[in-house]
């Protein structure tokens, strides 16, 4: 069962369930559209808690910081949002991802926001 994505530590949807079940406030970010040579495919997930802990990735590391801070707002407000990033900006170039891609990321709270 080495390749069963539901049993690996990097299974983000399972991690989201575990974190929520253990009482943490959680948001889930999903890459919903990409243009150009985006580093992570559509459907990639990042799970974030309200302390800024996260697992997974929506890019090669260049926009996760921004997604995490937006996700904390989403946990507070309980309202989903859509973020858009050009991956070829200055920050991306500095971390070695001058790939020229753009991505849209959907960020949603997990569970009733009051929970």
């Amino acid at each position: 069962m080495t390749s069963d994505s539901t049993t690996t530590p990097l299974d983000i949807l399972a991690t989201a369930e575990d974190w929520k079940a253990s009482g943490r406030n959680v948001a889930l970010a999903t890459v919903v559209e990409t243009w150009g040579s985006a580093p992570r495919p559509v459907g990639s997930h990042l799970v974030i808690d309200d302390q800024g802990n996260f697992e997974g990735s929506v890019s090669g590391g260049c926009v996760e910081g921004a997604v995490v801070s937006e996700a904390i707002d989403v946990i507070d407000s309980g309202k989903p949002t859509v973020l858009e990033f050009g991956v070829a900006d200055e920050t991306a170039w500095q971390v070695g991802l001058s790939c020229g891609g753009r991505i849209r990321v959907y960020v949603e709270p997990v569970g009733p926001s009051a929970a």
Partner: protein
Amino acid sequence: MDFSLLTALNKERSERRAAVLVTDIGTGAQRLILRSADTSADPLHEELQRRFRSGKSGMVELDDGTSAFLTVNVPPPRLVIIGAVHISQALVPMAEIAGFDVTVVDPRTAFATEERFPGGTLKAEWPEDVLKSTPLDPYTAVAAVTHDPKIDDIPLIEALKSECFYVGALGSWKTHGKRVERFKAAGLSDAQIGRIDAPIGLDIGAASPAEIAVAVLANIIFALRKEAGGLQ
């Protein structure tokens, strides 16, 4: 995402069942579509069926001008090898590295030993018994390599009747010719029989058991990525 929806989705995934989460990214409204569900009345029916085949997530435009995101979850590909033979000893680790869940089935206890197949992939049972508990699904490949019709035929016939994405059988053209006659007599159509990859594997002149394993895995990946529409 509602927590109950997340747990329902994860349950489907852990049971090797495909499911699509439909998210209206304008309103945040979501619903979960199981592969087993009848979607014929759903406005997204054709799109959903296509996504279950391709395994690819993506945006879809709806008739009312809004757009939804489809998070498509299909199981990791599985390879069922009939025959705990020398080729299988090479094919198991190769297929596992390539990301497959691998099961080896062989009722012959001289072949089916833990020493030859460490790691829990082995079932020393008749294939027909194993198939009762773990039926073949569209995300499964079957490779029959025992050379023995008593062992190979039933799982091959079951595989050809199922939706599994690859069916391969070891044996020369002559051996395969006899197999075709038996399968016709068993009531299979030419189209069903034509799905069999035989002689098995991509023609790379493979000579040793390990090389044959490479050839078999190559054709399984071809079927998965090219013919089945690019399962993730």
